[in-house]
């Protein structure tokens, strides 16, 4: 019983402890066991919290028994627990995959460091989600970001280094913008506790520092979540990072930044401040539309499969921010549910692509790149992998029966609610672009004749296939049974907008 009461702290502390333990053990196998055990425990804790929230509503946990707003508070509501499940769940699935995957991609003597970094990244992401303290968000954000830069730099291609460097510069600028925003808020309200801040901000609502804080936070977080046109770091980082890292980042890192944005917009500033004092909805609407069309359009012309789906991610983030700009329960539900649905679909897709990378053999000392040319007739040799990518692709398009359809459906509902028919058309039209880029893979893998004899190693690695198919299964499951995803998202949206049922 007492253990259950401490779940919010354990959620973050377990992965945090696993990271230094992994370093101390200096052994890839032991480090893997420790970090994976911590990730699974975190996943169990996330499920436990989700159930607790269902019973008692909002959980408030005082770190070190200092009551908020003086001490640091961990605060778990419906949205928090939902995001915790996504992040901890993804880590639990990606880690066993990473065991088999990094064998081929990372030198063996640094395996234990990879697991340590993974543990830290997981700690950071979980911490950002669960904390109710503004400065704490920044600290956890940097923990996750710094470990992410390291993991990207572990990629075999030397361009992974420049990608990591570029991400470090952009990410640090974004994080510094976020601290500046938090600093302004602290100056004006004298508190760092988000709930307390939300109360006190009413008195200084239209003062210029508060509006400046809103602007700094928006820009900083947009950098972190890769909102068009601040997405420059994303394609290279996703393309050259090790496969397991790409999958984990694509499913969680940008999503957690969106979560922070939602948290600040709706829990701290409140919708009246965000949506009435500044032209934010219009800006966000247009940037989202640009992302949806431009990034999806660019994706069609990519030759590297990882880069193709990286651009697709930027487009999909457009759908998430589009949902935010509506300022309605359905719009917010669409955003939150798409965070989850896109996370699992894209995570699964990148895991499967990692399987292809593992099967390809590098030529001339250059590490193998999953270029479309090398995938001619691939479906004959790796049928399950290709079929999985097709299902993931269908979810990105938003075909009924897949998770992606659910989010698009709520997005369309929100657009129709506001009688924005041209937006309905735009959402459907941009989905056609997704059809085009997914079709490029289908055409090459299923219908093109292989130019040369198949490479000898072209068979499906089982250890990589099982975790990926777990997520593909989840993509289909959450496309059919929406009580967990859409139900939680709807409840979270109502909590955030302060509207009763």
């Amino acid at each position, binding site marked *: 019983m007492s253990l259950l009461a401490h779940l919010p702290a354990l959620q973050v502390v377990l992965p945090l402890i696993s990271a230094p333990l992994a370093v101390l053990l200096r052994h890839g196998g032991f480090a893997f066991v420790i970090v994976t055990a911590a990730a699974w425990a975190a996943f169990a804790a996330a499920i436990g919290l989700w159930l607790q929230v269902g019973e008692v509503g909002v959980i408030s946990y005082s770190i070190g028994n200092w009551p908020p707003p003086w001490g640091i508070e961990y605060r778990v509501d419906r949205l928090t627990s939902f995001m915790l499940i996504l992040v901890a769940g993804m880590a639990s699935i990606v880690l066993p995959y990473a065991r088999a995957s990094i064998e081929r991609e990372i030198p063996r003597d640094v395996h234990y460091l990879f697991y340590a970094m993974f543990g830290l990244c997981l700690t950071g992401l979980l911490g950002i989600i669960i904390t109710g303290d503004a*400065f704490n968000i*920044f*600290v956890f954000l*940097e923990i996750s970001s*710094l470990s992410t*830069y*390291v993991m990207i*730099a572990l990629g075999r291609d*030397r*361009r992974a*280094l*420049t990608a*990591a*460097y570029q991400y*470090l*510069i952009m990410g*640090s*600028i974004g*994080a*510094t913008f976020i*601290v*500046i925003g938090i*600093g302004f808020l*602290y*100056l004006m309200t004298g508190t*760092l506790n988000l709930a307390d801040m939300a109360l006190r901000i009413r008195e200084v609502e239209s003062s210029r520092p508060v509006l400046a804080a809103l602007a700094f936070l928006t820009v900083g977080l947009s950098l972190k979540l890769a909102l068009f046109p601040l997405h420059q770091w994303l394609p290279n980082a996703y393309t050259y990072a090790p496969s397991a890292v790409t999958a984990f980042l694509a499913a969680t890192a940008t999503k957690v930044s969106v979560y922070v944005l939602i948290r600040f917009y709706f829990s701290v500033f409140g919708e009246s401040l965000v949506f009435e004092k500044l032209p934010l909805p219009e800006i966000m609407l247009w940037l989202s539309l640009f992302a949806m069309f431009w990034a999806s359009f660019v994706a069609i012309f990519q030759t590297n499969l990882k880069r193709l789906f990286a651009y697709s991610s930027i487009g999909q983030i457009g759908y998430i921010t589009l949902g935010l700009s509506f300022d309605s329960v359905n719009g917010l539900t669409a955003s939150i549910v798409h965070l989850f649905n896109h996370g699992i679909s894209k995570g699964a897709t990148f895991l499967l692509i990692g399987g292809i990378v593992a099967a390809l053999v590098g*030529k*001339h000392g*250059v590490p193998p*790149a999953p*270029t479309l*040319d*090398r995938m001619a007739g691939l479906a004959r040799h790796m049928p399950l992998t290709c079929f999985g990518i097709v299902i993931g692709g269908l979810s990105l398009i938003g075909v009924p029966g897949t998770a992606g359809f659910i989010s698009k459906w709520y997005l369309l509902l929100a657009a129709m609610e506001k009688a924005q028919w041209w937006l309905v058309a735009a959402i459907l039209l941009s989905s056609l672009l997704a059809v085009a880029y997914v079709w490029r893979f289908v055409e090459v893998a299923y219908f093109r004749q292989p130019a040369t004899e198949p490479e000898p190693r072209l068979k499906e690695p089982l250890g990589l296939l099982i975790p990926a198919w777990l997520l593909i299964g989840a993509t289909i499951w959450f496309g059919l049974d929406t009580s967990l995803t859409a139900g939680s998202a709807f409840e979270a949206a109502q909590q955030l907008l302060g509207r009763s049922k």
Partner: protein
Amino acid sequence: MFGHFSYIVTVFLMVAGLYIVIARGNLIKKLIGLSVFQTSVYMLYIAPGKLVGGTAPILAPNFSIYSNPLPHVLILTAIVVGVATLALGLALAVRIQEAYGSIEEDKILARDNSVELAEDSRL
């Protein structure tokens, strides 16, 4: 005017640092700019916490004006983060120098492009 002195310094450092990051192509210079940019934030937090004549917040009969200690604590954390970021950035710069033989952005870009062209012609 003079009352806002600390803010003016802060904003100058902030903009100067950000400008260096954007305008310079040398990876080390970029990191210097990033450090200046991050340091300006330390000023932003610390300066408003200080009261002229204020002491450390220890209750004592002789003193009635106290400075706010919380910003210092926050910035100690931020300094650690800044150091870690800088260290990682420099480590990456070393690795890039080893892999490319240069830390100038345009040269690195040119070398990557030539590799990509070679890859395309091979296929």
